[in-house]
């Protein structure tokens, strides 16, 4: 009996150890010598069903067409990608090609984690991608990623409510100014209905991007010794939103603690007639809007200009890769115009490929693609993405300060003091 137990224990231990060893032989993954195919790892952050399918289809197509360069698709996630990449850079296990965004590339470049692609990129991809998008991934002479998806801000509206109030909808050629938007919101505000809801949970990125409407930079010398500023141009957007909240009372105060997705139930219920938001929100509207709900995408608002700050989602190559040429070849295939149409459609974001932006699929008025795609030419590199220490400035100073201002707890002057004085104290640490 005892010997039976020992045999059973040994067998169980063996099984467990065998199971635990699973995958051990699958690390590494290089090759490329002696006729072996080159093996690349590519970490994507795509998460919407259509975007994931597009990623898989493109990688499959590449692997089929390139038996000598095989790509393994890894799935990352937006919420933890930074920690995960930093750790894998330190440990030398970073994927050869990785998906992330332009705001982090300078930091990664300074640390020597990403490859400068300037010597590897073909003229074809350089010409196809918009100049303004390249700016977001170019730091000095170095190109640390290939930009491929961008978001812009537009306005969504309940067409039924607007038409019932006799509001003439703006067009791409004749968009509303901020003043006109405020006037229409006031007109649409009735008992139990606000003209607009402006989601202001963590508003810094959006405010800074929209500040470009009025020429607001928020920082002097962003690529050098950046200093926060809060002059007339920077004050325009927050002041106008505050006026809608507390002077006109045409924007619902509910928006102060809401994300864009949080605002949808009230928008569908007719509590808010208009909802400024990013173009990807269309996907949620298509999926979640109740039957018969008639919504429309309105063009981006205009200030002194229609310019908006933007960052890009990018594909970069790890500095530690053993196969930089092959990695860039894969990126160029992955981001060709045809594939960018699929990727943009899957994530409901703008492609950076000028050819892709012409495709009928990305200009379909039924889902607001025509309006979304029209914003592409107005996107500029968001100056803040070059500022060292911006992420801490944003999370520790700007987001809480904007929240206090939009909650009417502090004045515009006090907001400026926080952003500038307290903000510069943060930035100073990064410039030592």
């Amino acid at each position, binding site marked *: 009996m005892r010997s039976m137990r020992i045999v059973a224990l040994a067998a169980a231990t063996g099984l*467990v*150890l065998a*199971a*635990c*060893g*699973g*995958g*051990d032989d*699958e*690390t590494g993954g290089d090759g490329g010598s002696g006729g072996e195919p080159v093996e690349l790892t590519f970490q994507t*952050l795509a*998460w*919407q*069903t259509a975007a*994931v399918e597009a990623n898989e289809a493109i990688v499959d197509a590449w692997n089929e067409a390139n038996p000598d360069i095989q790509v393994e698709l*890894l*799935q990352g*996630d*937006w*919420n*933890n990608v930074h*920690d*995960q990449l930093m*750790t*894998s850079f*330190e*440990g*030398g*296990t970073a994927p050869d090609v990785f998906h992330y965004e332009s705001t982090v590339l300078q930091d990664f470049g300074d640390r020597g984690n990403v490859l400068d692609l300037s010597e590897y990129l073909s003229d074809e991809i350089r010409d196809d991608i918009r100049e303004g998008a390249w700016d977001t991934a170019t730091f000095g002479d170095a190109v640390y990623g290939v930009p491929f998806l961008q978001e812009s801000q537009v306005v969504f509206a309940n067409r039924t409510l607007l038409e019932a109030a006799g509001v003439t909808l703006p067009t791409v050629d004749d968009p509303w100014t901020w003043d006109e938007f405020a006037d229409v919101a006031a007109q649409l505000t009735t008992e139990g209905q606000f003209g607009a809801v402006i989601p202001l949970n963590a508003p810094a990125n959006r405010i800074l991007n929209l500040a470009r409407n009025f020429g607001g930079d928020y920082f002097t010398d962003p690529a050098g010794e950046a200093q926060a500023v809060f002059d007339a141009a920077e004050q325009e957007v927050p002041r106008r939103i505050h006026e809608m909240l507390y002077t006109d009372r045409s924007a619902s105060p509910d928006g102060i603690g809401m*994300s*864009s*997705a949080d605002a*949808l*139930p*009230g928008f*569908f*219920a007719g*509590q808010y007639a208009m909802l400024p938001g990013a173009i*990807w929100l269309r996907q*949620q509207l298509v*999926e*979640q*809007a*109740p*039957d018969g709900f008639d919504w429309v995408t309105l063009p981006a608002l205009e200030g002194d200009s229609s310019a908006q700050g933007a960052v890009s989602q990018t594909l970069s190559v790890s500095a530690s890769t053993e196969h930089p040429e092959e990695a860039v070849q894969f990126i160029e295939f992955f981001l060709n115009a045809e594939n960018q149409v699929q990727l943009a459609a899957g994530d409901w974001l703008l492609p950076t490929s000028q050819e892709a932006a012409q495709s009928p699929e990305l200009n379909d008025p039924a889902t607001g693609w025509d309006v979304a795609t029209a914003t592409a030419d107005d996107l500029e590199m968001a100056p803040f993405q070059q500022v060292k220490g911006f992420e801490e400035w944003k999370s520790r100073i700007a987001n809480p300060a904007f929240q206090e201002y939009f909650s009417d707890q502090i004045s515009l002057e006090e907001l400026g003091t926080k952003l500038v004085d307290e903000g510069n104290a943060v930035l100073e640490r990064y410039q030592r």
Partner: protein
Amino acid sequence: MNRSTPVGTTLKYVALAAYLVFLAFPLFWLISTSLKTPQELALIDPTWIPNDITFDNFRAAFDEQPIVRSMLNTLLVAGVSCVVTVVLSIPAAYVMARYRSVLSRMTLVWVLLSQIFPFILVIIPLFLLLRDLGLYDTYLGLIAVYVVWSMPFALWMLRSYVETIPIELEEAAAMDGATKVRTLRSVIAPLLAPGVVAAGLFAFVSAWNEFLFALVLIRDPELQTLSLTLVKFIGAEGVARLGPLAAASLVATIPSLIFFAVMQRRLTGGLLGGAVKS
């Protein structure tokens, strides 16, 4: 005689019912959410019971992510971590409870100190260590980390249980000629059952739910655990696909619920009743 009044009894049951509702609500909401359409999830007044029950969320969850494979991976990792933690903790806890030496006290302090370090502080050194040992991206590496991470608490918990076992029982065993190992196996271990189950549950649930270590230490999609799979339903800017996420989370909860159901009977104490005459 200590009799409750009818009012007291009623209040006790009301409090118990309230507590049950409090505990059951998240599970109920998870079930409800998993059965709703995207349109119903976006209603301004959320419904308790779905108007149009749909299983599309389950279909989407299983189609899009390898839920079953992740669940089996997690079961293996959590199960082995649980067993190893308990097996290593029992003798260590016994020594710490029964042998009051300087070393024992120092170990106790070290165990407490080890709980102070946050995950994020140790993750990079741990990652480098496992990579150098060839344990990066393996179950063995992840299990080793989970055992080391949950053992201090399990040890502390079991030590308290050992201290409640009267020393006279061991003396009686010794009088009957039992060795220390035999005493530990035949006398102490059975009496420790509730403590072992509690420590085992703790180790299992910790490993089952753990995310950050798995994120950093596992790269191969084939080896990914449930928490890594579930997070894929949450995207940029924290926007979640609530329906499939709830469906996948519900499915993911089932094995740990079964584990609890099987083990909870063992949690009940009372094994010492009548063991020693006082």
